[in-house]
């Protein structure tokens, strides 16, 4: 393990990458026109890393200075990040002037990719643009772009420490970094795409990279299986997505955002049933990508990949692609602004899928012992919150209640931001734990001929009491968990509160059917409090449960910095950004006449606090305080009773962490061995048997069908071809008997034949 101070000189190659944006700005390039750099930089880095990795594999410079391609990847991601920040700053500075424009949107279109010349009935030709190349930038794009570039950069940084110090990855890391930057390109491209076809193409690139990276340890059977499962499950959704896009093309004759969103109802002539099915198909695609019920089975298994991959792809970025797609559906249903009437079921369906997933995933997370699996189910559950919020928002839009719709839309997008930051960080923190536990285990058994397979460094039952050993990680994980739970004033509280409150508002004031999702998200808030606290207490509090824990040190370089940065954002970002009106800013594309608040800073702070804790509607006040009570008090106390406990004598950690650990020991302890043997617990441990029944269903339907198809292919199709072949062989043998084999004879035949044809033709015409 290298000296960490010495390691940072490796960052020298990053300086030119950092200079690109200032140089372009001085040269007078518009920030929007530089947007292609965001996608181009990782796209160029991908072959460079892959090819140099193959050529220089094992060389000391490649391994030491370039970190097996990690530094190249980091430089390219820095170009993307700085360009994204540049566009963001320009957008915010210019936002005041363009706020009156339809949602403050900036679009740049550089070239036509596919265009057709169309011949009209009056014999005039015109060139019709089908697919162009360009970008579509509004506040939703920018938020997601910032999340993606920022987290890609930080997680690539983290990987330098995590991947390159693990002997199992020796000389294979160039594959990791190459696939990593390719994924980054897919994500950036999807977010920036200005039409549905490009969105779909980049969507598929992400799917491919997800498959490759889950299967990074392909020699492990479970990893290979998980990769296949993830690819095939999301493929189910992708097929639906493609069908949806084809229907959309059929309706609008184009897939460009600027054409479709300009007037989604085409002056009221669109058939709402047809559009409904198109949007449902898109939604199924989103469900597959974002791992929602019933296509959720791939996400927990995807944790077989390296931890940075789990952090980036399966928590912070790729799984948000589905949410982004659903967020883009707003113009279709927004009847206040050229939307199509009669699409109210869409919002309900989205909200129900979200509510069911949130509840189901949270309950499964109750009993998981693998630290990454808990986080995976938590991801599913939190994404489901955002889906619920978007569903409610779509419902509001389709009933013309733009104000409420705007707030919950912005809240959902804000939750996406908070969740991505917190969950990316939580996964990195869990990676730090796993990494150090693994190292400690290797250290403990150094030289001894031991079997690796009887010790699982991801199992929380082998941990406990790590708070004193890993002060930074435990503090980071505490803040991240608080943000996910929604502890008041921290991170996710602000956005989760908005979603829960607006779902209840929809159910109480307007639509009784919304009660289902509303009660589910409320219960899930408390359950989140339980399983996140349980994870934290099991890992960091109480007595060490394994001898390995004594030997854990927090010493790997490159790992702490991302944790610290993201902790600060998770802790303060929620309050800080909501005071600056991020909820309204995020909803700007779809709130066509919403004024931007011009209150003073203090007024804004008071307004936000009042809004969160003392809303005017008495029902919402009850709902809000119930949520806070469930997530802040009930959930964590139950978790503390089961898994909490003080550290060993003489061990201490950071101030807040120590206090929390001390507090967790004060609620008494409860034995849950009996409870964990109940049939419900068993069902939860088996993930409610979804995988079992899916496999059963597949083996009863797809496999017989495949066998039938194979039989048909072998006997009927091949049979016909073989019969033709063998018969022509037989025929040839018969004909061969009458031939002489002399070339002259054949020529004679040809001449006689030609003459007879002439004679015949002459006879017929004469």
């Amino acid at each position, binding site marked *: 393990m290298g000296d960490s101070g010495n390691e940072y000189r490796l960052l020298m190659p990053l300086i030119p990458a950092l200079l690109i944006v200032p140089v372009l700005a001085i040269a007078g390039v518009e920030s929007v026109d530089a947007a292609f750099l965001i996608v181009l930089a990782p796209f160029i880095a991908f072959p460079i890393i892959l090819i140099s990795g193959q050529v220089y594999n094992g060389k000391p410079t490649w391994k030491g200075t370039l970190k097996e391609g990690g530094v190249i990847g980091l430089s390219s991601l820095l170009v993307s990040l700085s360009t994204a920040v540049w566009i963001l700053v320009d957008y915010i500075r210019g936002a005041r002037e363009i706020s009156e424009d339809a949602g403050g949107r900036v679009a740049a279109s550089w070239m036509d990719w596919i265009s057709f010349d169309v011949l009209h009935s009056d014999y005039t030709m015109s060139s019709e643009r089908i697919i162009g190349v360009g970008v579509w930038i509004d506040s939703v794009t920018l938020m997601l772009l910032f999340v993606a570039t920022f987290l890609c950069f930080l997680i690539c940084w983290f990987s330098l420490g995590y991947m390159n110090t693990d002997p199992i990855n020796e000389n294979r890391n160039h594959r990791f970094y190459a696939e990593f930057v390719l994924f980054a390109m897919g994500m950036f491209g999807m977010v920036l795409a200005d039409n549905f076809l490009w969105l779909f193409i980049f969507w598929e690139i992400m799917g491919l990279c997800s498959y490759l990276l889950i299967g990074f340890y392909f020699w492990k059977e479970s990893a290979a299986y998980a990769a296949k499962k993830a690819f095939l499950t999301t493929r189910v959704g992708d097929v639906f997505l493609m069908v949806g896009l084809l229907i959309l093309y059929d309706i609008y004759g184009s897939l460009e955002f600027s054409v479709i969103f300009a007037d989604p109802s085409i002056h009221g002539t669109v058939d709402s049933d047809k559009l409904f099915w198109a949007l449902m198909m898109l939604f199924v695609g989103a469900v597959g990508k974002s791992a929602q019920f019933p296509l959720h089975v791939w996400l927990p298994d995807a944790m077989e990949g390296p931890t940075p991959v789990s952090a980036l792809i399966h928590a912070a970025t790729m799984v948000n692609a589905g949410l982004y797609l659903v967020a883009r559906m707003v113009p279709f249903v927004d009847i206040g602004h050229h939307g199509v009437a009669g699409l109210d079921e869409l919002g309900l369906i989205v909200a129900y899928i979200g509510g069911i997933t949130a509840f189901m995933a949270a309950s499964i997370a109750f009993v998981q012992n693998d630290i990454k699996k808990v986080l995976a189910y938590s991801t599913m559950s939190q994404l489901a919150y955002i889906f619920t919020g978007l569903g409610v928002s779509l419902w509001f839009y389709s009933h013309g209640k733009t104000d409420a719709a705007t707030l919950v839309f912005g809240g959902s997008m804000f939750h996406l931001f908070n969740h991505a930051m917190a969950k990316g960080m939580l996964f990195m923190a869990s990676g730090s734990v796993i990494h150090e536990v693994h190292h400690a285990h290797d250290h403990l058994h150094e030289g001894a001929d031991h079997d690796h397979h009887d010790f699982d460094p991801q199992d929380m039952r082998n941990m406990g009491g790590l708070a004193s050993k890993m002060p930074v990680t435990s503090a980071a994980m505490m803040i991240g968990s608080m943000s996910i739970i929604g502890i008041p004033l921290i991170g996710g509280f602000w956005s989760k509160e908005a979603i829960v409150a607006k779902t209840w508002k929809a159910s109480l004031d307007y639509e009784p059917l919304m009660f289902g999702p509303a009660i589910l998200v409320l219960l899930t808030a408390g359950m989140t409090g339980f399983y996140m606290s349980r994870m934290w207490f099991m890992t960091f509090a109480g007595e060490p449960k394994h001898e390995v824990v004594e030997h854990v040190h927090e010493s790997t370089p490159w790992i702490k910095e991302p944790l610290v940065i993201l902790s600060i954002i998770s802790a303060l970002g929620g309050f800080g950004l909501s005071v600056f009106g991020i909820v309204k800013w995020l909803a700007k594309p779809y709130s066509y006449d919403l004024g931007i608040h011009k209150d003073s800073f203090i007024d804004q702070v008071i307004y936000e606090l009042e809004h969160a804790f003392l809303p005017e509607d008495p029902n919402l006040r009850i709902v809000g305080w119930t949520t806070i009570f469930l997530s802040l008090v009930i959930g964590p106390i139950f978790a503390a009773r089961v898994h909490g406990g003080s550290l060993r004598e003489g061990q201490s950690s950071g101030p807040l962490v120590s206090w929390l650990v001390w507090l967790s020991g004060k609620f008494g302890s409860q034995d849950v061995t009996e409870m964990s043997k109940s049939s419900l617990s068993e069902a939860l441990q088996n993930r409610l048997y979804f995988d079992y029944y899916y496999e059963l269903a597949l083996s009863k339907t797809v496999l017989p069908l495949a066998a039938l198809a194979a039989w048909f292919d072998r006997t009927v199709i091949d049979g016909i071809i073989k019969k033709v072949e063998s018969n022509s062989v037989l025929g040839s043998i018969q004909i*061969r008997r009458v*031939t*002489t*084999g*002399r*070339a*002259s004879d054949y*020529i*004679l035949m040809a*001449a006689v034949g030609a003459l007879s044809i002439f004679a015949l033709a002459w006879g017929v015409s004469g």
Partner: protein
Amino acid sequence: MIDPSWIAALGVILFGIGLLGTFYHKNAIVVLMCIELMLNAANLNFVAAASHYGDVDGWVFTAIAIAIAAAEVAIGLAILLSLYSTQGTISLDAARELSN
């Protein structure tokens, strides 16, 4: 100027010689030459017709036919070479693989 019918007659005679030659000769090279003879008989007719009608198409066809004939001869000779290397002779009576 010669009457084109005389030229056409010459073409027919040449074609007949070529055709009979392909029937009765056993040497593959002679057969190839006879085929060329037939081709040129056809060319002669083209040229005659072209000069008779004052139309350039016949000349063009002839030029193309000559070019193609050259390619065909090259291929024919290559086939004969490989025939010689496998059979040791270029007599067409020896090359009767197809008969059984």
